């Protein structure tokens, strides 16, 4: 396989030579072992690796120290895969990117995928098996598991709880487990359940099908409480498709139109051309009204149903003009529309959306339907938390096995699972962190991180990825499949052996297997869509009667949290400090409410409210959210955890108010607590002020077509007394950021943090306005208070050609490079901070303390070795990822391969789901970035200051429906 190595091995017969044919996999285990040994020296509590450590006396042929290697693998969230590519330096993963070959990624990644990296090195990870808090051996837990899964008992009293599973290997294991232990009870638990979407498809089509959207084929998109650009299993791909239809470069270009009907302002709502804020319970009624209008126009609905829908509309239809205009727009674009529903909406709304899409001919065009890759999709195991509760309460559970789901915390408190789990005579918990469930379970088994695991997983369209490890488990964790193997009574084998033997039937030869590993996807593993099934109409009464009674005073809308999801990322320092794209809140959650309701209740942001729902109380600070529906409150899940983690004690636990996983909207009453709490918000609700057009240029498509001009003022070159720098290199780096594509999702913020070793500063740091993010997303609120618009503008160093920071530095620590970079020389910086004062964009960040002093091992392993870790007292800022530029230039020189446009991608650009950020050589007329700079929409922020920024923005355009103008 590697003849070069074979020949070298002949030179020396020493036994210390590396194994002859060193495959990459073996190398990884060696590299990982090296790391494990290093961490053992630091931490002193990991097992000695079995493998022999071998120095690079003879360098393996595919390893060059200092040159990163990249491996494709996949991460899984709520059962669905996103393909990732992990960068590794000498066996140490340092960066996660999206896998361009993966249909749910298309090369992009979200903040969650990016932040898996810091989770790997979290010092709080579980480091060994414990039984009732005392360390135990792996053999002991294996024996206990074998006892629990004794085949003679047929699994009586044995309950297994795990997140929804798409993994073919685990699905196979579960099938065999059921055969072996017929009495075994399975429970699939995801707090952000998709149950209503299952049921909606069942109601409409009689089968639990997944809806697949291809937004490239949709000219009119309607989101019914659906955060379709920022949440859900394929949101990265959907956001790309959506943005591709909005990259207007000339006045003749077409653009799609997005309508969003939602309760709180979401990332998708902020991108909408038309947005209607409704409390959750009114969305079914709205959907009914829309269906009624469409049925009127295109027919195809049962007459009885039409009458029902009409009756339901009368008297309450205050949004008639909106509904009519939307309906006409949808009808005009028959076959080129898409109506999508958020997962928390009741099944009938999903069914109605299916009906709408079928009636409008969108099914088969932008939308298609396919079976789900999730194991037992739509089955009772997905809705069995109450059954589990009953079983626990009635002592019918003898052994409870919880796999990778923080059941005690992330479940409705009303179910009292935290207490009931403790009552189980025997319990096992496979987890990464010491959390509430770990405290309640007897056996706690460390789980291997995804970057330490061999596994398989499937995207929402069924595309299968083999999950390959980047290093051996740091703390001897095991994978889910290894745990299940114990229940199956199999002799313990490595996760790799399990996976390889399972896949041997499909990926027969080594080449096919290696190809799947290399690409990160298994060829043609996607599930084919089915022909759109016949519509059923038996759900009409459910839609009409759906939702809480109309006299409801206030309703509470429980949502996923953009930073910690359902609590899954609750200890992740990068995500804890990631400002919410809409509210800019960090380090906690707060109950969102609209400005009018806030006025009525006489509360302001930071005032603590006492929410009461169904006898449960929760104290939570208020946060006024522009564009929030009146008569409703929004609270995100995943905060307010007790215990020891980094996120513990921050925010309020919304699970305390949850009744069951169903029916997220619930009646609630509000009282004012005398307390106030300071919320770590990075930007308040701010407008652009009178100086709007010098900061951000925006217009409508219609206006642009009429005038053909946008932001002319912002393109004019300001007068200057000074010539531009004559010492110019052939290449001149620059960036464009398309505000029409940017959703503000903040994936780039975490990508930048990971790439550039940016430290988190903690809640106090944020309160003092000392965030270190090199790239922030500015968020402005414009428009009327009733119909506000959110504008986002990613803001990092603009690399001004005439940089105000440079001439004020007394030590020449910030200087210009000949290829147009505004460079920061950390070694030369004494920290006067004059540069920050003089930066009109305020993108410079100062190390107020030594932020790395308190770091616990092995956190330091996360750092990118190509980027300096800055010491106390120096200034830092965006470098345009200069390390990537220089690496590419060195490669160009040494490999004699000319650099092409797009070869260098900055971390933010690479992560961006919508490709809003483009980087390249502005001196090259053919480069994409030059083309975009020359477009009508290009403008410079604060152009009149004469800084001549290298980063240009492309103006924001909206495409309002003329009928609703």
């Amino acid at each position: 396989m590697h003849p070069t190595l074979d020949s070298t091995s002949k030179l020396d017969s020493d036994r210390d030579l590396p194994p002859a044919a060193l495959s990459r996999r073996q190398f990884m285990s060696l590299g990982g072992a090296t790391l494990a040994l290093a961490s053992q020296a630091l931490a002193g509590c990991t097992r000695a690796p079995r493998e022999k450590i071998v120095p690079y006396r003879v360098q393996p042929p595919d390893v060059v120290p200092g040159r990163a290697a990249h491996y494709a693998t996949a991460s899984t969230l709520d059962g669905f895969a996103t393909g990732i590519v992990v960068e590794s330096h000498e066996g140490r993963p340092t960066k996660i990117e999206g896998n361009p070959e993966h249909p749910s990624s298309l090369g992009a990644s979200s903040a969650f995928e990016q932040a898996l990296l810091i989770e790997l090195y979290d010092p709080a990870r579980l480091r060994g098996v414990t039984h009732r808090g005392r360390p135990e051996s792996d053999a002991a837990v294996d024996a206990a598991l074998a006892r629990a899964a004794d085949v003679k008992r047929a699994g009586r009293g044995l309950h297994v709880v795990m997140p929804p599973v798409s993994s073919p290997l685990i699905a196979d294991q579960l099938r065999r487990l059921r055969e072996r232990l017929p009495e075994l009870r399975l429970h699939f638990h995801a707090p952000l359940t998709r149950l209503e979407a299952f049921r909606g498809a069942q109601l409409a089509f009689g089968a639990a099908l997944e809806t697949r959207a291809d937004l490239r084929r949709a000219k009119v998109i309607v989101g019914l409480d659906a955060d379709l650009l920022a949440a859900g299993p394929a949101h990265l791909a959907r956001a790309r498709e959506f943005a591709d239809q909005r990259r207007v470069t000339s006045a003749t270009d077409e653009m799609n139109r997005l309508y969003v009907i939602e309760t709180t302002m979401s990332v998708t709502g902020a991108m909408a051309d038309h947005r209607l804020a409704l409390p959750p319970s009114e969305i079914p009624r709205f959907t009914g009204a829309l269906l009624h209008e469409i049925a009127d126009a295109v027919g195809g609905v049962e007459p009885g149903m039409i009458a029902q829908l009409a009756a339901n509309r009368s008297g309450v239809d205050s949004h008639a003009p909106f509904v009519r205009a939307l309906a006409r727009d949808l009808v005009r674009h028959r076959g080129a529309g898409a109506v999508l529903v958020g997962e928390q909406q009741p099944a009938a709304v999903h069914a109605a959306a299916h009906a709408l899409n079928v009636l409008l001919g969108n099914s088969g065009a932008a939308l298609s339907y396919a079976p789900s890759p999730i194991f037992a999709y739509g089955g009772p195991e997905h809705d069995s938390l109450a059954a589990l509760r009953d079983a626990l309460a009635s002592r019918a559970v003898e052994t409870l096995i919880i796999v990778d789901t923080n059941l005690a915390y992330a479940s409705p408190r009303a179910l009292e699972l935290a207490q009931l789990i403790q009552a189980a005579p025997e319990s096992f918990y496979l987890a990464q962190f010491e959390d509430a469930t770990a405290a309640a379970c007897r056996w706690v088994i460390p789980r291997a991180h995804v970057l330490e695991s061999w596994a398989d997983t499937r995207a929402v369209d069924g595309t299968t990825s083999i999950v390959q490890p980047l290093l051996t488990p740091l703390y001897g964790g095991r994978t889910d499949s290894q745990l299940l193997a114990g229940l199956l009574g199999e002799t313990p084998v490595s996760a790799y052996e399990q996976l390889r033997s399972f896949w041997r039937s499909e990926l027969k030869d080594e080449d096919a297997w290696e190809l799947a590993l290399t690409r990160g996807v298994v060829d043609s593993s996607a599930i084919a869509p089915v022909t759109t099934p016949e519509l059923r109409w038996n759900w009409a009464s459910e839609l009409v009667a759906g939702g809480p009674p109309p006299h409801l005073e206030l309703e509470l809308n429980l949502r996923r949290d953009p930073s910690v999801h359902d609590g899954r990322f609750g200890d992740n320092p990068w995500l804890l400090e990631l400002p919410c794209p809409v509210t800019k809140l960090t380090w906690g959650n707060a109950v969102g409410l609209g400005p009018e309701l806030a006025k009525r209740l006489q509360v302001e942001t930071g005032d603590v409210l006492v929410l009461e729902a169904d006898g449960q109380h929760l104290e939570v600070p208020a946060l006024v959210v522009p564009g929030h529906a009146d008569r409703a409150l929004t609270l995100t899940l995943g905060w307010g955890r007790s215990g020891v983690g980094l996120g513990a004690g921050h925010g309020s636990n919304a699970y305390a108010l949850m009744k069951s996983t169903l029916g997220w909207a619930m009646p609630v009453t509000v009282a004012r607590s005398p307390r106030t709490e300071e919320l770590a918000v990075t930007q308040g609700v701010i407008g652009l002020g009178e100086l709007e057009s010098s900061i951000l240029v925006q217009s409508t498509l219609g206006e642009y077509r009429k005038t053909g001009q946008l932001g002319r003022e912002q393109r004019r070159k300001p007068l200057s007394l000074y010539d531009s720098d004559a010492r110019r290199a052939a290449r001149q780096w620059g960036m464009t950021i398309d505000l029409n594509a940017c959703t503000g999702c903040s994936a780039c913020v975490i990508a930048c943090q990971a790439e550039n070793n940016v430290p988190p500063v903690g809640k106090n740091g944020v309160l003092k306005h000392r965030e270190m993010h090199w790239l922030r997303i500015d968020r402005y609120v414009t428009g009327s208070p009733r119909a506000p618009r959110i504008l986002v503008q990613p803001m990092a160093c603009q690399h001004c050609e005439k940089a105000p920071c440079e001439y004020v530095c007394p030590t020449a620590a910030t200087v210009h490079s000949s290829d147009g970079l505004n460079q920061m020389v950390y070694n030369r910086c004494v920290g006067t901070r004059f540069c920050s004062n003089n930066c009109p964009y305020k993108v410079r960040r100062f190390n107020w303390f030594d932020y790395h002093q308190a770091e616990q091992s092995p956190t330091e392993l996360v750092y990118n070795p190509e980027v300096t870790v800055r010491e106390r007292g120096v200034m830092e800022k965006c470098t345009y990822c200069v390390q990537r530029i220089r690496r590419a230039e060195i490669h160009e020189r040494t490999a004699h391969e000319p650099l092409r446009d797009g070869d260098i991608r900055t971390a933010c650009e690479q992560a961006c789901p919508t490709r809003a950020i483009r980087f390249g050589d502005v001196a090259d007329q053919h480069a994409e970035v030059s083309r975009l700079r020359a477009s009508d929409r290009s403008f410079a922020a604060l152009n009149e200051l004469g800084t001549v920024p290298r980063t240009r923005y492309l103006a924001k355009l909206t495409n309002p429906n003329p009928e609703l103008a």
Partner: protein
Amino acid sequence: MSSVGALPAGGLPLEPLPAPADERELLTGATDERALTAELLGKILQPPKWLGPAIVVTGAISSVLVFSVGYTLVTGIGVWGNDIPVAWAFAITNFVWWIGIGHAGTFISAFLLLFEQKWRTSINRFAEGMTLFALVQAGLFPLLHMGRPWFFYWLVPYPSTMAVWPQFRSSLTWDVAAVSTYLIVSVLFFYLGLLPDLAALRDFASERWRRRIYGIFALGWYGSAAAWRRHRIAYGLLAGLAAPLVVSVHSIVSMDFAIGILPGWHSTIFPPYFVAGAIYSGFAMVLTLLIPARRWYKLEHVVTTAHLDKMAKMLLVTGLVVSYSYAVETYAAWVGGDAFERRMQLAVRPFGPIGSIFWTVIACNCGTPLLLWSRRVRRSAATLFVLSLFIQVGMWLERFMLIVSSQSADFLPSSAHGYQPSIIDGAILVGTLGFFSFLFLVFLRFVPFIPVSELKALNHDLRARP
């Protein structure tokens, strides 16, 4: 006293003219030169009883400075309240304020000497001492507020092995040159003027050790005509050097802001405006120190009401210049057409989050001096003392307002953020006040703070005239 000693300070020998009435007011009471020497030097050799405890108390307050500076150096300036965007706040405010206070000393010593103002005689030593100690406080801040103060010398042009010079386009490197020059010239000027009095103390003191120490510092001064002649020439030359420094130092300090592009900073009026402000606050500080000292040292016949009156007039003039500068700044913003500048001057400063500070500044710095049109106010020591405190508070707040408001709301609304000082910020300010007082009291204890020889010359001059 020889006739050389009778020369008016720095002046040429002229025909004696009748001394004007207000000059006669400059020295009242004892007219015998021997008695003057005995009285003034006696105050150094037998200090008043309150001085010892006062030195101990201010020394204790200085230890607050030592602690808070030490804490800052060990931990990092994150212990201050600064943030992004407000990266400069208390430290730079304190720096500008203390430097400004330091201006009055040199102004009195050098400018008034060159302009042959006799009233400088009794107070110049006092003011020079104040200048030096204010400079010590001021010099602390540029060092301390760096992120890595241990590399402060990188701002100094020296032949470094790294072959990197300071970046001379930055006003911070100009600052280093301006402030260090000013400090050196001020020390020389102070010491040169002090020589004859140190010699007098050496001769006057009875204990051997005192004579020894003062003798060493007197550098062998024995009061010959030749020595006096050279002393006069050197003193005049130094005055000529120091006078432009009064103007240049604060002009350059003002450029720390004026070369920036921030709205409210980027302004050509800053140099004269800052110089006037500096002299304004400096004179206020002289009054603050002098009024109690003259009373407790029973020096009303040496530092007379006429002195107070003249200093009050200086306050009035500089106060009006400062007020005029405020008006011009605002007016220029209004007609200037720069929307960001207009917002800063017309909205953020007067009506923004720190609007109350703006109006306090206007009241203290523009309102207070107007009272000085009244002769009664100018000649009332107690009133002047209170007014001088108001002016100093006003000038500190002016710098704070100017520095913080521009940073806290510059161009992008997204980066606007306020500033909240930390307890360490406050401790450092209080600590420098304590340390300044401590140094000043030590100065009163050991150094002839009224220039005895010059005063005797004045006495001689006044008596020689009809």
